[in-house]
């Protein structure tokens, strides 16, 4: 499939140049360290640790997910891609890359986080898992779309979080709430609405992205 081929190209390119991975890994380490240092020896509540978890995820996403489009734009290969694939193929391929990246990144963050923060204890693990799954998909979709927008603008680095935050905000709020519920051990039944919201967000975002990407991509 064409989109999968594009993903493989990006993956091979990343393996060879390590354009994004290096700085991303360091960024995650630095962010978590900053939080640990600023907390010091204080005990933080479990709700706070849950919220901070998604803060780390948000900023790591902002650090790593723009590479998909920005690297092409910076190298001048956007035209090359326009010559070989239709807009929907491009978006699918880049989305696939960012999906894999988001999951890899967030699993690392989750593991590091649960090891370093005692307050981060999940009583209802399966609830967290579902939230994690749906949430990451939503983050990937929205971030990929915004990345394609800022790739065409100047001051991409600072513009990316500015544009992404309002779009990701409903998702983040729901995820923080679900994380708290998972920590409290709340059952699946009562969290059903929040999970449905995540699912809705994913579906709506992906539909909107495919419809709007053409206008972003084509000059």
């Amino acid at each position, binding site marked *: *499939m064409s989109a999968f081929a594009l993903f493989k190209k990006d993956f091979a390119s990343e393996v*060879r140049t390590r354009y994004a991975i290096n700085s991303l890994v360091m960024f995650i380490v630095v962010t978590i360290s900053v939080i640990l240092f600023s907390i010091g020896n204080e005990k933080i509540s479990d709700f706070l640790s849950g919220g901070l978890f998604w803060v780390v995820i948000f900023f790591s996403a902002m650090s790593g997910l723009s590479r998909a489009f920005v690297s092409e734009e910076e190298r*001048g290969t956007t035209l*090359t891609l*326009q010559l*070989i694939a239709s807009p929907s193929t491009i978006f699918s391929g880049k989305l696939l890359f960012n999906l894999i990246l988001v999951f890899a990144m967030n699993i690392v963050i989750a593991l590091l986080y649960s090891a370093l923060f005692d307050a981060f204890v999940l009583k209802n693990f399966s609830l967290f898992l579902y939230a994690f799954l749906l949430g990451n998909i939503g983050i990937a979709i929205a971030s990929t779309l915004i990345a394609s927008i800022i790739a065409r603008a100047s001051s991409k680095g600072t513009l990316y979080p500015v544009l992404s935050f309002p779009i990701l905000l409903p998702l983040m709020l729901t995820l923080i709430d679900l994380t708290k519920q998972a920590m409290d051990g709340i059952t699946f039944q009562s969290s059903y609405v929040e999970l449905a919201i995540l699912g809705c967000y994913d579906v709506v975002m992906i539909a909107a992205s495919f419809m709007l990407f053409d206008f972003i991509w084509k000059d």
Partner: protein
Amino acid sequence: MSNFELKAENISKVFGRRLIFKDVEFLCPDNGIYGISGPNGAGKSTFLKIVSGIISPSKGTVTHLIEGEKIEPENLHNFIGFVAPYVILYDEFTAAENIHFFSKIRGINFTQEKFDFLFTHFGLFDRKEDLVKGYSSGMKQRLKFIFALIHSPKILFFDEPTSNLDNSGKERVYQTIREESKSSIVIIASNEDSDLALCSSILDLNKYKHSGSR
């Protein structure tokens, strides 16, 4: 042999406040070599990008037809080959890898014979497993031709096709152009006389620069 047709009518392009050209008409009803000439800054590259569907005109329509049927913009890319100084290939990959990836992404397979033939024809067969990072500008230009031809497109757009090439390179390009024009439309944008000498008809963009009212 499928009949490809290009129709560009009333094409105008404006960048901000600058008018590049106005009311250009460009028709390619059949296979052959068509030229676009004009001094630097006349908008040749812009015009080429417009008629190949890469950018949209400010006014006017561009239609691509195959067997009389209109081709939708989403599907156009596989019918087109494009060579220009501003086409960049991935220099972290080898030449062969570039071509392989592009074909997979296009979804069009090529035969090994065609692959070998093109690489040999453009003199890059020995260097095909080398990273493009190490290529000279002339080699990159020749690789761009391979990129443009490997999927057997029906319409070829060449912007300054002989830039960075030595005489033997130029000869090979002219040979390719003559060969391809038998079965496809070839459009050359250039200000080199030797390039334009191949063309059966030439559009002078300089004539369309002024809108008539200033």
